[in-house]
């Protein structure tokens, strides 16, 4: 049950995390793993990032790090922003509807 709900929402959580700033993999994985119930483990974020990348919703660039190896920073694309905006509007309506029935 939770797995199905998670599956529908998590990619938009990734896009939302990238809305304000670019982030590198470890940062994204940890942010999602720390949000209760979103991912089962940090590593499961990478197949998702791979798909979002393939679908053109995110983009990646390499940047040097002051301490440690170069990092791949993920950035939301224009298509990604459109998808996120659409989801946010739908989510709002969906949540209101479900809440009203559950109440």
């Amino acid at each position: 049950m939770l797995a199905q709900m998670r599956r529908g929402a998590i990619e938009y959580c990734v896009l939302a995390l990238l809305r304000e700033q670019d982030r590198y993999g470890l940062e994204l994985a940890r942010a999602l793993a720390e949000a209760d119930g979103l991912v089962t483990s940090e590593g499961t974020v990478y197949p998702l990032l791979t798909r979002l990348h393939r679908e053109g919703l995110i983009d990646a660039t390499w940047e040097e790090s002051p301490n440690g190896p170069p990092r791949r920073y993920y950035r939301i694309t224009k298509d990604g922003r459109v998808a996120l905006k659409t989801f946010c509007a739908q989510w709002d309506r969906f949540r209101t509807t479900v809440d009203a029935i559950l109440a």
Partner: protein
Amino acid sequence: MTDDADLDALCGDYLAKLSDSLAGLPPADRRQIIDQVSEHIATARSALPAQSEAAVRDILERLGTPEEIAASAAGEEGPRPPMRGRKPVLVGAAAVVVLIVVGVGLAALLGAFSSGGNGSVQSNLLPPQTSPSGSGSTTTPAGVVIVPSLAGQNVSAAVQQLVTTGLSYTLTYVSGTEPVGTVVEQSPAGGSRVEPTTQVRLTVTGTQVSVTVPNVIGQSQAQAQAALSAAGLDVRFVTKTNGSAVPGTVTDQAPAAGSTVAQQSSVTLTVSQ
């Protein structure tokens, strides 16, 4: 006390298992996931105050089991448009050997450009992919990859980008005024649309030095270490009980004396106990 090589092996083992678990994926996706996880480990390890086994195991545990990641990947592969058919998985022992051979040059390069100490080579940089596969970073018609623009970049970043797009590469070294390790030229040029099997030639400032491994069998551990360090090689010791040899002497070495290897390569010496 665990040394860095053991920890590298621990991480390498995890990545190898992950690679096996992801065998059913299209090669480009599989490659990309392994790359990302490898980078995750390297970044997390670089942030550790000390490289302890417990800390490294914790990083791997938080990543989840390779099976867990594979299950997640299988889920992502599920409902996708049939425009890009799955390609057969082209990973054989031969391909791996080729990658390792190319990787040695890369390792030497990284050794030369990073700390220069006798530490192990960072494993954030995977060897290049030589199998034909679609590009992971750009949406292009099937079978076409856009060559990234790499001039002016550090060679490690440049190679990472090529690996991401699935292109293979060769490195040529020249002297120049740019900092060592800068890509000064590339062919084909950035922006070119090429076949995924194309090999990109990068011209990089600096030199790749190869050295001949000296014979140290029969020497004491200290003598052998000194001789190999003088030759620009790193040394690892393995101890072994050997009834016939004087304790503390080198009874075996790998690679063998006379082999030509990249500078900063590691030579493993067996020392009698």
